[in-house]
């Protein structure tokens, strides 16, 4: 295997610097006592204090996390059931149709999803707010959970299930003690993806959020439209820290699961 040339290393380094620069730029100026993102006056934590004193902002943060956790949880349940359902469909054409329908929301542009959900919620007379945002997030997270869980189900050997049934396991036992443990990595991955989809979503939420309710993305958008506020910088430091923690946490969880799954079985 050839080594990376010096020029290649420089190129990669430049790409890394550019990718991370905006994030560290935000973090750096979050400690700036001057109100701008251009001249650093002196170190301060006042912008962090401002975040924690602003009850409205705290409520928005809690809402964002709540919507993400709840929507990921519901989407994981619906998506896993859907994947089990799809895997049990015998007809190939039917399965293909279900999968195509499944993928519609994955490939559709956010704006179109947002706009069509807005029409949908208005049509059925739902009030825009927490519920509409939660339902939308569940809606666009379900297909990704299906895509994460389904391959695991299809890898499952039917002999395992037959063996369990032969040995006297009930259908319920088969589900909870054979199928679910084996597809667990897919379920975790699905939940994690749903979580990140929800936390990162702006466009869909922006359409269905209404007046009284806001998530972090929508709030940052309206703050950013009025100009630079270092409160946003403080928030980004917090978001970055949480993201890194979640990624590291997820890495350890999946590695433990993988190590457990690989004990004896070479993949």
């Amino acid at each position, binding site marked *: 295997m050839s080594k990376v040339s010096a020029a290649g290393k420089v190129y990669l380094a430049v790409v890394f610097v550019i990718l991370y620069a905006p994030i560290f730029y935000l973090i750096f100026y979050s400690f700036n006592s001057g109100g701008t993102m251009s001249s650093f006056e002196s170190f301060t934590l006042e912008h962090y204090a401002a975040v924690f004193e602003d009850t409205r902002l705290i409520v928005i943060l809690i809402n964002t996390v709540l919507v993400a956790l709840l929507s990921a949880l519901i989407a994981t349940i619906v998506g896993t059931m*859907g994947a*089990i*359902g*799809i895997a049990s469909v015998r007809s190939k054409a039917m399965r293909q149709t279900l999968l195509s*329908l499944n993928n519609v*929301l994955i490939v559709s542009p956010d704006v179109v999803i947002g706009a069509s959900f807005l029409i949908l919620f208005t049509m059925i007379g739902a009030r825009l707010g927490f519920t509409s945002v939660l339902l939308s997030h569940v809606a666009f997270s379900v297909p990704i959970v299906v895509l994460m869980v389904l391959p695991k189900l299809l890898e499952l050997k039917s002999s395992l299930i037959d063996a369990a049934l032969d040995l006297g396991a009930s259908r319920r036992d088969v589900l909870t003690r054979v199928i679910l443990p084996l597809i667990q990595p897919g379920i975790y991955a699905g939940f994690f993806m749903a979580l990140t989809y929800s936390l990162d979503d702006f466009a869909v939420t*922006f*359409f269905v959020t209404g007046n009284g309710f806001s998530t972090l993305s929508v709030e940052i958008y309206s703050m950013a439209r009025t100009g630079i506020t270092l409160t946003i910088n403080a928030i980004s430091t917090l978001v970055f820290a949480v993201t890194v923690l979640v990624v590291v946490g997820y890495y350890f969880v999946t590695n433990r699961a993988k190590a457990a799954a690989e004990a004896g079985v070479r993949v």
Partner: protein
Amino acid sequence: MQNKPSFALLPYALWIVLFVIAPIALIVFYSFLDIHGEFTLENYWNFFSAEYLQMTLTSFWYAFLITFFTFVFAYPTAYLLTKTKHKYLWLTLIIVPSWINLLLKTYAFIGILGLYGPVNAVLEVFGFEPTQMLFTDFSFIFVAVYIFIPFMILPIFNSLDKLDRSLVEAARDLGASGWDTFRRVIFPLTFNGVKSGIQVTFIPALSLFMITRLIAGNKVITLGTAIEQQFLVADNWGMGSTIAVFLVIFMVASMLFTGVRTKGGRAK
């Protein structure tokens, strides 16, 4: 696990009906309504007016430029990544910034590209006059490329990673130069990764509206901005839906064109 698919499929089927089929039907239905809710074909006529055609063309042009530059920077990065020692670790590090909220990254560029930002400070050192880079085509394309790069790197990296090294070695042994090997062996064999990369960049680039609002300065230059404008500013859901219908048509066309089908079925 035969039998009982009906029970497990029930909530999922409900989801399909409510959030996949109904929204598509509603968008199509609304595209035939005027601002007073009367049936009309006017929206479609409007879409083919000079104003909208021009906007569509501009949107395509920007999406093309964004996809092109994203590809130009992503391919070498992916290629070099596959040659590093801890390639998966480096790949993860490339992907991490894409998990930071999109809005925060875009907001950072308001400062970075601004009149008093670091880019202008660097330019000044080299004797250039500071210029307002925000609200220009350059800043719009730059930020969009920044946002999409990790999504383009990922599929290209995967296809390069799967590439059989012996084919490359065979080409070299048979006397192909480095460039020839790349052009006639490596690139064609990783073209599927490139196509998926184009797919995850081009259509989202057509439908951007947040970046156009924050960075390109409120101009309506993409189909996405036009939809947002019609729905949330002009309150003309009919016209907005019509543009959405066309955006979906373009999406389907580009998927057929790039020919990457998300195949279901057996994993092995």
